[in-house]
């Protein structure tokens, strides 16, 4: 085997490993399972959501009640967040004007 071939193989292996790590979120922070993972899984990056959610949760109900409300609406977080400003469904969290669902999901993340 030539040195060039060896190098190419190594690069390919590293790329596959990187792809797998990304796909299966091997290096992402792992959270213990919760009863709300069907909802929390829709949050792309949970860490900032938890930070933001600490403020959001102050004026919102507990996790179980929040989750029940979110499940009643069949739309995903992305669908709701996109639609709510047009429907005047907005919330104010520590001065930030956000789609209502963003406040709900963040509050859930902070409580889960």
């Amino acid at each position, binding site marked *: 085997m030539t040195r060039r071939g060896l190098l190419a193989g190594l690069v390919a292996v590293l790329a596959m490993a990187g792809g797998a790590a990304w796909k299966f979120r091997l290096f992402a922070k792992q959270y213990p399972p919760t009863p709300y993972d069907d909802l929390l899984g829709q*949050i*792309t*990056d949970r*860490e*900032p*959501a938890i*930070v*933001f*959610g600490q*403020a959001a949760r102050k004026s919102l109900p507990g996790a179980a009640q929040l989750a029940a409300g979110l499940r009643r609406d069949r739309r995903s*977080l*992305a669908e709701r*967040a*996109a639609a*709510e*400003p*047009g429907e*005047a469904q*907005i919330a*104010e*969290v*520590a*001065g*930030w*004007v*956000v*789609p209502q*669902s*963003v406040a709900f*999901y*963040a509050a859930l993340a902070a409580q889960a």
Partner: protein
Amino acid sequence: MSGFQDARTLPRDTVLNPDLAIVGGGPAGISLALALAESGQNILLLESGGRTFEADVQKLYEGSQTGVPYIALDGGRLRYLGGSTNHWGGWTRPLDRIDFESRKGMSYFGWPFARNAIEPYFARAQSLIEAGPWVYDEADKTMSDNGPLLRLGPGGVYTSWFQFSKTRDNNLPTHFGDRYQADLTKAARITPLLNANVTAIRLSPDAGRVTQLDVATLSGNRLTVKPRYTVLAAGAIETARLMLASHDVMTAGVGNGNDLVGRFFADHPIPRNVATMVVFDGAMSPFYFNNVTLPEGAVMRAVLSPRPEFMRAHGVAGSLTTVENEAKLDPFATAAVVTTAQALGVDASRAKAYSLGCGMEMAPDPDRRLTLGTERDALGMPRLNLHMTISDDDFVLFRQTLTELGRQLLAAKSGMLHISYNRRDEWLAAMDWGNHHLGTTRMHNDPKQGVVDANSRVHGIGNLYVAGSSIFPTYGSSNPTLNLVALTLRLADHLKKVMA
């Protein structure tokens, strides 16, 4: 007698008999004099100060205050030829049509006429303040070379436009005294009389006419002016003071039979850093935070204003929200932006934040008022006390406009908004003022609700008029100079008819 005269050098007890006496050589007084220069009437323009700032003259403005903290009464205005245009910022925009409307559920709002009554005078007013060609909200069509408008979803806030008086290159906005001194000198029938303080308006025994103005100088000279007509154009504070202090015939003061003179004082609150606007793609056209000059010479700046439909539907007062400086986001703010942008499916990796400022319209309040105090100035005139108020509703209503702006940013997926203040003490701690003194001799057809009628004539007094922003019954959020000059030109047309 024509050309500039100095009241200190006229013989004591001189009696002057002009057709028209204009009290005050600021933008209203000078505009009025120039507009009537060819009318065939002899005009005496009485200015308390000289051609430049003098501390002793300025001290005549001192007064006391109660209520909400406000700028000292000698701090926000200038008492010499040109008046407060000697320190104005040059921001200019016509009042909007809705500013003239009475509005359901909003007490004291509305003018006795629609905006079209002063529209014919805007072009000349624009020329007098040297704000270049009339563009304003037509700028949407012409500014595309300078970048796109902020993307907002459908709703109650839109990009509106201010122009500027002559702030080109190193020029300051037009100072009316400097700029129009030569024109006043040239006008054969105008006599600007400097250092001439009107200390009393004397009425006929039936209070139906002005018979005489008492004039004093700080050097001790005394003069008498016996005009056929008088226009008070001394600014919203000093005009009210002179009317209140002239109480030998009307015991509550000239034109104050219904206890309205001095009430409804207003200014534009301009609290700082009212909000932070995050733009997800980081792009913000320069005309939002800097003045941009169009090829034809208009100097423009974009602001964010509530639409009339939104104002009517929500009972919201006027406001203008300005983009100020780039701002930094703390970790919590960054978390808010990341969480929201990800939920919206938007890339916020290049997001930038900008602090927002504003100018607000206050709701008219009869208790926000000027009254005579017990102290007297060097001329023996009673000093004023200002009782300043600002209602919680003013903040709540402006907050609604900010919330709407935030909603529209989200709807367009272009950005988001953080509102800085919620409590009254937070708003007050950030408070600054526009120094736009308004409303103390408000205009209304009903003498029980206004000091002057729709022609700016003091109710019940046949030959006394008021010019300037003191007649504004509702204030809008536009800076007043262009509008008060337009109103003054309208008054000039009226006077040409009645004085002929």
